[in-house]
């Protein structure tokens, strides 16, 4: 049974690349264009084993999404990784305070991303 990863990003290119990398590595990928869409997907029955989300998004940003997810009993302990740009320490802190597991710093290559995912997603 492949693990499901929910990928949330408003940039289609980024979403595609993340999704492609993950599905090449054998994960099942569900995509969402912003936080609101992601919440909709989860309420619609998707139960991700991992959430990868961008922070700066229209409709609902990443921080709010993380807070929403942590409120859901089913996803209380689900790892959440946020995509952040280089040196935004404040964003990292805010994300962690909201309940994020970790972060992936942009720009990243597939190997780096998979290394971080392997950190938090039990094989």
């Amino acid at each position, binding site marked *: 049974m492949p693990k499901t990863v929910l990928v949330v990003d408003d940039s289609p290119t980024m979403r595609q690349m993340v999704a492609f990398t993950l599905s090449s590595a054998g994960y099942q990928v569900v995509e969402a264009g912003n936080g609101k869409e992601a919440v909709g997907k989860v309420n619609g029955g998707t139960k991700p084993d991992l959430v990868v989300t961008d922070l700066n998004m229209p409709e609902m940003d990443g921080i709010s999404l993380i807070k929403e997810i942590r409120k859901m009993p089913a996803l209380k*302990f689900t790892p959440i990784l946020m995509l952040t740009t280089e040196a935004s320490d404040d964003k990292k802190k805010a994300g962690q305070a909201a309940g994020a597991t970790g972060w992936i710093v942009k720009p990243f290559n597939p190997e780096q991303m998979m290394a971080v995912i392997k950190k938090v997603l039990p094989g």
Partner: protein
Amino acid sequence: MSTDLSHFKDAFFEESQEHLTTIEEGLLQLEQRPGDIDLLNRIFRGAHSIKGNSGMFGFTAVSQFTHKMESVLDQLRSSQMVVTVEVTDLLLQSLDCLKTLIDCAKSGEAPNDELVSGLGGRLEACQNGGTATNTVAGAAPPIPPRATSEHHYTLTWVPPQYLFQRGLDPTQFIKELGELGRVKIVSLDTSRLPKLKELDPEQCYLGWALELDTVKDVTVIEAVFDFVREDSTLTIVDQPPAVASSNDQKPLGEILVESGVVSQTELNQALSQQKRVGEILVEQKAATPEQISEALKKQSDNAPAKKTETPSIRVDTVKIDRLINLVGELVITQSMLSDLGSRFEMSQLPVLLERVAQLERNTREIQERVMGIRMVPIGNAFSRFPRLVRDLSGKAGKKIHLILSGEETELDKTVIESIGDPLTHLVRNSADHGLETPAERVAAGKPEQGIIRLNAFHEGGNICITVEDDGRGLNREKILAKGVKQGLIAESDKLSDEQIWMLIFKPGFSTADKVTDVSGRGVGMDVVKRNIEGLGGTVSIKTTAGKGTTFTLKLPLTLAIIEGMTVRVGKDTYIVPLLSILESIQPKREMIKTIVGKGELVNVRGTYLPLMRLYDVFRLEPELSDPTKAILLILETEGERVAVMVDEILGQQQVVIKSMEQNFRKIEGVAGATILGDGTVGFILDVRGLLNISRNGTAQAA
């Protein structure tokens, strides 16, 4: 893990090319308009995109270098620095370097580190307020890799209590450490565990201690705990193993230097006197220099070959949309036809004919559109010239103004790729030979600045590209003298101007008094002509002494379709490329001569041409075997002529070339095949190949 992002990579490389072009054009324009903020922003965005994207694909050399360029551009943009010739030069050089870096990233080759770090250093110096005139001194010596001796770490880790609530699993951390090396003793620290009734199952109260043997650095181990480091209690102690595990022998020289017997300079001197194996062998007369260089060549040949590049093409989505639209129409027509076919009555014949006509229209339109996909604007090939001309004018000490026009003219991508080099050569030629020095120009009453004009336009089914200069024009006497000297013509020959101009396309012809860095190295114009003819095109020259020279290249729009003459031999139909047909004649008996060892010749107005009976070449059953009753086609390629005998000329038509090599195998004398109107296959004659056959007398059945 095999995450292959190669198709995103291709997109990256293609996109990068666009950005590189934008930057280059921008930088060149910047010299004219140094204060243009929009322009600077555009250049900056180009660099920024390359930086961001290359980072995503792990081309760190590219992203780091671009970052330095970007910093300088940022300072220019924010007016902290002014645009000077030095800065532009530096940026242009850096751009070249960046191109190389990207090419290296593409082919997987190692870039020239010295150049990269040298330019990187200059960019940094420039950005730090220094001038850009610094030398290559910025090249920092590479840091030698640290000895890979094994560390022996002792770790204690008490994670934050919230560990589980953030989706973290402590066993993951230990597993990850296990991947770095050997985790030896693991002990659990339960000292913080509360009484059962106070225990919150969602909190983590445990701690761990373990020993780890690894060659990895302490920072790598710390990185494992990246996500929890701030709230964890983490200690990492490195206890080096008692015995140094390094058993690498030090070089003798190093030991001598360390023990103070010799100094580093003395050592370096001694080392520089060391000879290479090849040199020693040559000295001992064990091998000749030729043998050594051959062996060296073999060595470099065995080096991993460059990755081959799969060509791709970017197509305007509008073109694709139209195509899809047309395919839609085709499907509708097809369904209408099959509907009609299922219950057809003779009374519906007019409807059927109408539908077939519609099908024909659809097909033709789709054919045109598909051809159109391969069409790209020639501007892509032109874009390299502003930079080239800038460099050339600097080198030759001439003032040159380049005017480009007709950049939007479209032609086949393969043609565009192949004309780049010939065009470059013509532009170099104009800059070096065509245009005079500023002093000469002023003396001749012309403006100091010379003009080179590149233009492209459609003419009939062809595209014309002209390279025009307003320089001194071709020197008739000089070319004639040189032609006689080289034995290309006899002194008594009466040549028309056109024939004289064409002499410059002969191999080895160069009238340049001095060989310069730019051109006049004896290779060139003949190659230009050969390349253009290889594409099925022609080159012509127009020149006026003192006024200038115009080279006109005439090229077919595409290589996939040729204009052909269909001819018949016996029952078979062949296609002869129209471009190579000079004339067709029906010879008289006395024009045909047979010469021992040379076969048959035909006298066409005083010139003897070899006569080839096509049915002999392809072993066919002819209708006519008497040349005086048949037709002779006089074909020419690369200045050589041959008379080919066929039964009948059927007509002229455009044919789509299908490759023989890909579908069958190469056949000498046949350039390809095509499907004729009646559905049969017709061979397209390869004039070059026929000439070879006539020379060697080898015919092959086809």
